[in-house]
């Protein structure tokens, strides 16, 4: 045994799930190595540029599957660098959902009440701003005014944005040039580094094997920093504990590829994938009606024409987050900016007679781009996604140097999911087409399938071994010492943006991971404060620890 590195804890991925685990394990005294397949970008690397090869394409990954495409992060900080920073907690009813299995899909130990102290830990660790109406950009204001006009409510969404630094440039999907977005690059990751964790970018994990002593060997390739089609031989690291947090589109693929060297995977690995029920509608606003009906003026003679201005999703309608409604009929409607390149090709011409996503009428629609308002629907889908056999390397067969790849996910929406989407579409139309304010059409699924920016549940927690890959402590069934803490562990759609819930679940998973590390002889303790030293959150979860570490 020579030439193989050793560490106590090997973390795969540096997004919410990986960063939170890396921080706590390193702060507790373990030797931690984080392998991240994407580049390490900071500050001025985040250019405002649509050119292929800019941070806009280097930092995220678009994988086209059969019936569903996934947009995910691909850089140090993962999803936190490319997301729009909305951080709401999930509504209470979500945890009682039955979904496709006909009984409660969440573990009995997890409810909104039991997760609340873990949400609090996250809120103490990532600065989250409860935005006010003066923080709300024109697009959010318009959505709020339209909701109000239709007799609905509207809420500014809590976000991990320092509004004093935000310049409303709407480039945040390319990373934040102005350090206004409080991504993991400012919170858990520097704290993990301060405690000795190593973060290695451009290391793509391919497979895991089990050693005779019960530890694990993780094999990785080294990736070119700009052309991700190019890779070179990497190496392997042995670790006593593995924390998989490569994202819901990649974690199950790594496990599938590892089956020959790890042994049989739980049935639910790569199954029960949820797109968080996501769907987008584009409204083409009538500027005159915006002025007349809603009484809105920008102050420069324009009523709206501000699609480019703002900071991601800022205002959401939560009237249909009503736990008394039947499952699949509950959803939120959130105003969202989606940049060109991704947000225009799938937009359909409302009421199109000819082709709806390309051609003459589509070009005319593009000319009115500044008057677009995009509404992001998060509904309750049916966990119907299934990953096919993994590709030879990575999570997809890459086509272009960054961004575009072809994956193995199959997603065939059930009537439940389709009905939820139709209800959300109808609600959008009812609100925005009222009194001629706009014309609305949903994005087409005919081009690249349905589309999610919040992939979930491909390796989920649960009490039933038949339908969950992980126990309620996030340990992979049948493979002690392997934990999954990213979005793939979330059992199903959340009806709101999932980053806050992914993070709370990761925080909740830590005590058991620490316990497992201790059981394997690692000198590590649980109990680090928040990354900034605050301790209220730690006190809040103290009573919960015995139940979480008991096997």
């Amino acid at each position, binding site marked *: 045994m020579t030439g193989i590195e050793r560490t106590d804890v090997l973390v795969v991925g540096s997004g919410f799930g990986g960063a939170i685990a890396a921080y706590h394990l390193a702060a507790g005294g373990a030797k931690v190595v984080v392998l991240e397949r994407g580049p390490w970008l900071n500050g001025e690397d985040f250019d*405002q*540029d*649509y*050119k*292929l090869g800019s941070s806009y394409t280097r930092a995220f990954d678009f994988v*086209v599957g059969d019936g569903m495409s996934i947009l995910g992060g691909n850089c140090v900080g993962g999803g936190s660098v490319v997301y729009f920073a909305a951080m*709401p*907690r*999930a*509504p*209470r009813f979500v945890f009682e959902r039955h979904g496709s299995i006909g009984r409660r899909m969440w573990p009995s130990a997890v409810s909104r009440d039991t997760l609340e102290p873990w949400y609090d830990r996250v*809120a103490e660790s990532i600065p989250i701003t*409860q*935005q006010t*109406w003066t923080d*709300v*950009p*024109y697009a959010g*204001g318009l959505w*709020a005014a339209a*909701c*109000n006009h239709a007799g609905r*409510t*509207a*809420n*500014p*969404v*809590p976000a991990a944005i320092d509004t004093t630094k935000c310049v*409303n*440039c709407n480039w945040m999907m390319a990373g934040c040039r102005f350090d206004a977005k409080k991504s993991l690059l400012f919170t858990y990751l520097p704290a993990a580094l301060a405690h000795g964790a190593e973060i290695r970018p451009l290391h793509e994990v391919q497979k895991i094997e089990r050693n005779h002593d019960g530890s694990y060997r993780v094999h990785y390739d080294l990736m070119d920093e700009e*052309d991700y*089609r190019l890779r070179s031989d990497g190496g392997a690291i042995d670790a006593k504990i593995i924390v998989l947090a490569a994202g819901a589109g990649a974690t199950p693929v790594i496990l599938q590829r590892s089956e020959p060297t790890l042994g049989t995977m739980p049935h639910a690995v790569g199954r029960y994938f949820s797109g968080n029920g996501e769907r987008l509608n584009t409204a083409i606003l009538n500027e005159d009606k915006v002025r007349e009906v809603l009484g809105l003026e920008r102050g420069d003679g324009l009523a709206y*024409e501000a699609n*480019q*201005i*703002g900071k991601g999703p800022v*205002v959401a309608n*939560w*009237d249909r*987050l009503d736990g008394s409604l039947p499952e699949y009929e509950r959803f*939120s409607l959130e105003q969202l900016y989606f*940049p*060109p*390149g991704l947000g*225009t*090709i799938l937009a359909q011409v409302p009421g199109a007679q*000819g*082709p709806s996503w*390309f*051609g003459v009428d589509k*070009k005319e629609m*593009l000319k009115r781009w*500044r008057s677009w308002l995009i509404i992001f629907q998060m509904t309750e889908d049916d966990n119907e996604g299934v990953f096919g056999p993994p590709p030879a390397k990575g999570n997809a067969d890459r*086509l*272009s*140097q960054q961004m*575009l790849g072809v994956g193995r996910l199959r997603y065939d929406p059930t009537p439940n999911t389709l009905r939820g989407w139709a209800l959300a579409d109808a609600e959008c139309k009812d609100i925005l087409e009222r009194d001629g304010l706009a014309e609305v059409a949903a994005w087409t699924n*005919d081009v*690249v399938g349905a589309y999610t920016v919040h992939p979930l549940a491909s390796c989920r927690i649960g009490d039933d071994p038949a339908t969950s890959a992980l126990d309620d402590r996030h340990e992979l069934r049948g493979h002690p010492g392997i934990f999954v803490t990213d979005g793939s562990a979330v059992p199903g759609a959340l009806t*709101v943006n999932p980053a806050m819930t992914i993070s709370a679940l990761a925080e909740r998973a830590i005590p058991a991971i620490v316990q497992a590390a201790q059981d394997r002889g690692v000198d590590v303790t649980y109990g680090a404060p928040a990354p900034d030293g605050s301790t209220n959150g730690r006190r809040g979860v103290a009573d919960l620890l015995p139940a979480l570490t008991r096997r």
Partner: protein
Amino acid sequence: MRTPEEELRTMTLEAFADTIVPGEKRSPGDRSVAGASTGGGAVQAGAIELLEWDATGLTEGLDGFSSALDAHATNYAAERGVTLDDSVPPFVALDFAQRTELVRILTTPGHPEKALWVSLALFSNMAFDSAAHMHTVDALAAGHPGLLALGIEKPGPDGLWRFPEFSYGRELADLHPDTTPSGSPA
């Protein structure tokens, strides 16, 4: 300098890109661009430059795309009794409505080659809506027809976008009654 074969390939690919985002003819004799819309379309926006950049991953397949598209056009014309002008590639010889119909058929769910044609459409559209082969600041300065058509604002003197005016600045709706003090659904 392009070879005669490359000229023909380019004409076919231009005609495809122009079907996705149509533009006006570059000259009266322009055969690739059908002239179905005013202002520049995907071709003027740089679709061929983008497709010929190997970063897209399509470059090596462009000969195949072009010949396959022309073969589809030949079959399409034969099935409908359309006589094609053989001085240009078959897809270029179709009129705009016929090009549109053929692209619609090739990109319809269930078509065995759908993924190929969708990827060509994605990059054709991307040339227009984001000038993915150019730095955005340079594209705007050069009058890129797609970015101008979208109405993308010019950046500030340092090449960065900032919008100091961004909000209506007033309460525009009541909050949902079941909202926690920290702003989440209750």
